[in-house]
């Protein structure tokens, strides 16, 4: 599903100061896998996730997503790949605050050209699956953190992507809600067969995935296989 070869990324803070964040990452994630990336803040794990999500570019190496080389894509091309292949779950939810839960969930389908009635029906179905049917017409500001993250998950899976990228999905939630969110993500991975890549710094979150990739100073330091 994901094939990374010698990925480098440097941020130029100013003319004399450059930050070498990724120093040659090699990684393969198989289709349907459930993987977590762990590491201290600043270790480059979020940067890698953004590169995999084509939200950011890389300087060196090559990245294949489902066999397609992701390099020098125009914004329009990358938007299409994101829309078709990738769902995002963010730490800060990133819901559009003036849209209701239903409208937020339906948005990826809008960009896929699905008719309004059909996408709203589908969005309601997904909200129902995540136990939020009664909250469909509420604004994000009227919902709790756990509810918002469930709306975000519904939005990430509605377009049936091949890959979900979750950047600290439990980072803003209490431990009970965190567990609920992890249960949902695992369920999505098992039932919808969607490859799941989670960035976290919480050990108890990482331990629930099949594989933990440990990050240190821009390099993969170790890979733990959790499945017996």
């Amino acid at each position, binding site marked *: 599903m994901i094939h990374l070869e010698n990925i480098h990324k440097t941020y130029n803070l100013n003319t004399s100061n450059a930050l070498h964040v990724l120093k040659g990452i090699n990684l393969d994630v198989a289709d349907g896998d459930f993987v977590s990336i762990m590491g201290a803040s600043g270790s480059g794990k979020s940067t890698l996730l953004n590169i995999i999500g084509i939200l950011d570019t890389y300087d060196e190496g090559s990245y294949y997503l489902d066999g397609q080389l992701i390099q020098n894509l125009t914004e329009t091309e990358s938007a*299409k790949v*994101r829309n078709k292949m990738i769902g995002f779950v*963010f730490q800060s939810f990133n819901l559009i605050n003036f849209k209701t839960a239903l409208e937020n969930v339906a948005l990826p389908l809008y960009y896929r050209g699905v008719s309004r009635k059909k996408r709203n029906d589908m969005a309601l179905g997904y909200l129902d699956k995540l136990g939020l049917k009664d909250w469909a017409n509420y604004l994000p500001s009227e919902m709790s953190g756990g509810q918002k993250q469930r709306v975000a998950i519904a*939005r990430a899976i509605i377009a049936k992507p091949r890959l979900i990228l979750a950047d600290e999905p439990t980072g803003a939630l209490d431990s009970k809600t965190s567990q609920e969110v992890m249960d949902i993500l695992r369920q999505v991975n098992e039932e919808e067969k969607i490859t799941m890549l989670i960035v976290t710094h919480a050990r108890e979150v990482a331990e629930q995935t099949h594989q933990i990739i440990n990050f240190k100073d821009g390099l993969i330091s170790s890979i733990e296989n959790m499945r017996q």
Partner: protein
Amino acid sequence: MKDLFEEIFLTIRANKQRTFLTGFSIAWGIFMLIILLGAGNGLQNGMMQGFNYMSKNSMSIHPGVTSMPYKGLQKGRRLQLKQNDADFLKTHLKNIAEFSAVYQKWSISLIRGKDVVSTSMSGVEPGYEVMRNLIISSGRFVNNTDNRESRKVIVIHSKTAGVLFPNENSIGQYVQINQVPFQIVGIYEEEGGGGNRQPEVYIPLNTAYTIFNPDKNVSNISFTVTGVNNSEESEIYTKEVRQLLAQRLQFDPEDTNALWIHDNLSSYMQAQTIFNGIALFVWIIGIGTLIAGIVGVSNIMLITVKERTHEFGIRKALGATPRSILRLVVVESLTITTMFGYIGLLLGIGLTEGVASILAKTGQAATDKPEIFVNPTVDLGVVLAATAILILAGAIAGYIPAKRAVNVKPIEALQHK
């Protein structure tokens, strides 16, 4: 497309204040422009109506009182023009097109049965209707045969006809002045409604001499001149007229009080200069208002796009192409400017048309007062052009910042707070 508008409607609904502020600066700009241009036009129309009384190239000579002693004659002498002075002028003046001596009687009663209309009367020669800008709506004006044979015929205003002959044709009917019956041969109207004067009646000059004025005194002499096109030429011509009559009537050629020569062309040109000044002033303020509107819209769009950078980041992560985001912003901006531009246009035109119709109504009821404000409406083409400019500006004002926002990497847009 329908989907796009649903998406835009949602944004507008969610950002009522922003939408209102943008819309208000547009609507206000258009509204003020229409009011300003309308007021300018009203003033101009009002003043122009004063010039409709006599045609632009006409001059008229009114006798006055001498203010300088001349060849042993005391000053303070009242001059009197006679028919033979008119004949003299007619043979000696150059480039004359129409010419008429006028005998005016200020207060007469026009009687038909029990109905009476008090008005003034002018004895005129054929051709006077051209100088006076009369529109003959039925029948004819005084002609040469009428004048030569001193026929008792009369031309009256349609309003007067309406009072004396309600619901019937007045042509061929008789009215009495001083118990002398006159046959109505023509009905006239005036351009622009004719202001508020009590419309006068016209009879042949020779008829007037026979019945009212055996001494053949002349109240004024009116004529139109060809080949006089600017105020200098008109001044030279006026001087020649004054010199001709100064010799004949024995007054100082420099004495402007002895003879009033009213020259419509130079008054018209003076007024034209004032109008041009007013028009320039109105346009400067109008364009200023438009620019203020454009700046307002640009500002709000700039802030809007900045505020929405994070939202655009989210949309991009979900698969929005740069084009779709550009279209979202520009079409939203276009929708708001068009909608509110239309509102401003409706309000502005509604107000100016309303004022115009009220003025038109009260204008007929009032008397004597000259109207300084007539039909304060605006050329629709100008307004539509202004609205189009504002809408275009709104689109550009949305496009430029949106283009910049769209070029931001999605991750940077997402991190934007």
